[in-house]
């Protein structure tokens, strides 16, 4: 028959098991938590509840747990992994505090380690008053000193400088303390190593969010007035320091790193907001807007930074291109400059006449030569004028049709005008052709093609292949559902049409297959080298 001790451990084991399978917020987990709390309330009638693991076994208030159920075993393994040997659940504990305690108990060992152990994590969420715990602690000891005792409730901030840790991974502990000290602003300077560590933590947004929250909370704890004044400011300051560490990345100037930071911040915001929702502390729970504003501000900052960088880069590129163009213009005989492919390309790209003249002057073309070119432009303008006249005539005819019927004489007059304009246009165009001594523009453009590299062409084809997959999925799936009758009955004739549509879909799919076989996959679907290297290491 199970004892009260068995029941409590069994209930705790069930919560841990359900959390592992469904997560802490799942209905079955919450139900297990409520049942366990009711059991604890009964046990608290006799005082605090002490859970111990000793060489003799597991006990609750000195009653040894006799059950060997998988849930009891699971509980023991779980707390042993976290190096917890003694927990006291004080009878003043509320149900909300018990749920917060479960969150800490469910944290991964490595997460607890970052928070300074189980005791440190409890302290970080202000549970030290209702949960007593013994676990390992870092502290300064002399070389010849032997440490045998364990200290109650490890703290995050015990000095380790010039000392040796008594237990656990001292290097990691020291680094975590340095990170927290930096995030809190205890240390205004930033060691490269600390910045590097924070960037590495940034790869795991949840972990970084925990560190920022812990830093903010411990700062508020150390200086109580800080929390009273404005907890959100404290939290945002810690967040900004984490961002400062990210900007210390040697590759920060690259767009890739900036995009990575933006992504980290987006995930970090999500994690912080999620974690803040679970906080009991009203001051911290009210920080949500501050976090949103702060991260939005950083995003803006990064965007402006990227724009400025892009602008500077383009400006340099423009300067460099202009120098090359001027060199080319100097080498090109003046009489052929106007017919050059370069001019055509620049004009097609949006360069206007004034810009072109400016370029020519910079390249050393004389003003007199430019004046001669003005005459040629005059011809072009004349052609433009003819086009304008034709347009106007067309409008006049349309208006006349609408207003009243035109007389034969009127029509003959208009025809005469049109004939004159056409002859004038032909003459002007021929003059222009003779002047430039080249092919008409239309004939030239027909033979020209964008100068795409083979690689770029394949990239475009790959993107097209990918984009075609989207609508074809919709068509295929919709037709399938209709044919299948999933969306209601269909008539025989409708089915025939749908069969035809499905066949056509198959044909398009084959074409896309061919396209992808030739062009490959778009960049975004290429393999990730870092993940690949990890896979092949395994």
């Amino acid at each position, binding site marked *: 028959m199970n004892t009260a001790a068995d029941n409590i451990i069994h209930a705790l084991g069930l919560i841990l*098991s359900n959390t592992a399978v469904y997560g802490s*917020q*799942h209905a079955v987990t919450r139900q297990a938590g409520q049942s366990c709390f009711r059991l604890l309330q009964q046990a608290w009638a006799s005082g605090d509840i002490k859970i111990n693991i000793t060489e003799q076994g597991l006990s609750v208030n000195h009653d040894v747990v006799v059950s060997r159920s998988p849930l009891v075993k699971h509980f023991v393994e779980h707390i042993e992994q976290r190096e917890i040997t003694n927990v006291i659940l004080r009878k003043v504990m509320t149900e909300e505090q018990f749920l917060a305690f479960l969150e800490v108990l469910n944290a991964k060992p490595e997460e607890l380690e970052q928070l300074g152990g189980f005791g440190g994590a409890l302290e970080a969420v202000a549970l030290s008053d209702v949960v007593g715990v013994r676990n390992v602690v870092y502290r300064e000891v002399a070389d010849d000193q032997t440490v045998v005792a364990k200290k109650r409730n490890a703290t995050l901030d015990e000095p380790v400088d010039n000392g040796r840790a008594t237990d656990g991974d001292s290097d990691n502990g020291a680094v975590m303390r340095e990170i927290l000290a930096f995030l809190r602003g205890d240390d205004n300077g930033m060691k490269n190593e600390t910045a590097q560590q924070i960037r590495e933590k940034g790869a795991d947004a949840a972990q970084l969010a925990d560190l920022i929250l812990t830093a903010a909370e411990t700062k508020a704890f150390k200086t109580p007035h800080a929390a009273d004044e404005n907890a959100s400011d404290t939290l945002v300051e810690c967040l900004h320091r984490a961002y400062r560490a990210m900007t210390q990345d040697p590759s920060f100037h690259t767009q890739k790193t900036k995009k990575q930071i933006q992504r980290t911040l987006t995930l970090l915001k*999500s994690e912080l907001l999620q974690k803040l929702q679970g906080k009991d502390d009203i001051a911290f729970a009210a920080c949500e807007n501050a976090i949103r504003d702060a991260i939005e501000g950083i995003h803006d900052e990064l965007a402006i930074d990227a724009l400025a960088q892009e602008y500077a880069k383009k400006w340099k590129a423009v300067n460099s291109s202009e120098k090359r163009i001027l060199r080319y213009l100097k080498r090109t005989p003046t009489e052929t400059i106007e017919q050059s492919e370069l001019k055509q390309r620049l004009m097609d790209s949006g360069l206007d006449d004034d810009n072109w003249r400016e370029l020519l002057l910079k390249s050393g073309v004389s003003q007199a030569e430019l004046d001669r070119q003005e005459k040629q432009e005059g011809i072009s303008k004349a052609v433009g004028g003819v086009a304008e006249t034709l347009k106007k005539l067309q409008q006049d005819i349309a208006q006349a049709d609408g207003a009243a019927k035109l007389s034969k004489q009127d029509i003959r007059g208009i025809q005469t005008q049109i004939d004159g304009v056409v002859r004038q246009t032909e003459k002007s165009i021929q003059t222009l052709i003779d002047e430039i001594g080249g092919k008409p523009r239309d004939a030239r453009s027909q033979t020209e093609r964008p100068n795409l590299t083979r690689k770029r062409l394949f990239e475009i084809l790959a993107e097209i292949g990918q984009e075609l997959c989207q609508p074809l999925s919709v068509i295929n799936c919709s037709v399938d559902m209709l044919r299948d009758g999933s969306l209601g009955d269909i008539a025989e004739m409708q089915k025939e049409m749908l069969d035809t549509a499905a066949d056509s879909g198959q044909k398009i799919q084959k074409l896309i297959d061919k396209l992808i076989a030739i062009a490959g*996959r778009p960049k975004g*679907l290429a393999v990730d080298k870092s*993940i*690949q290297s990890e896979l092949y290491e395994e």
Partner: protein
Amino acid sequence: MAHILVVDDETSIRTVLSVLVKSLGHEAVMCSNGEQAIDVIQSDQSIDVVMTDLRMNEVSGMDVIASVKRHRPQTPAIVISAYLSEEKLKEIRAIGAFGHIAKPFRMDAVRETIEAALSAAPLPPEE
């Protein structure tokens, strides 16, 4: 009836998958981007299966799967994307995706993958 989270930045894809999921007798929860999906994954405990596009702005399908694995490790996550190389398929498996549906997809492929994911999802343990 299962709750299936569909994440795709293409409206037409979301619509057709929503209709398909409903025709299979399930409830569809729609998200148009990865960030929104991560919020749902963290807050909506009723989600049984996650189906996500791979290529999305800012927060990608890989991030969505990583979030599922972190917050709801038992929930199967299915990737919907264009053709993938064997290496890329290994990658998505390595980060914990349950399966992959290639675009352009057919109804049967989606249906079979959803059914497989639902049968793989664990039932609540007996107390």
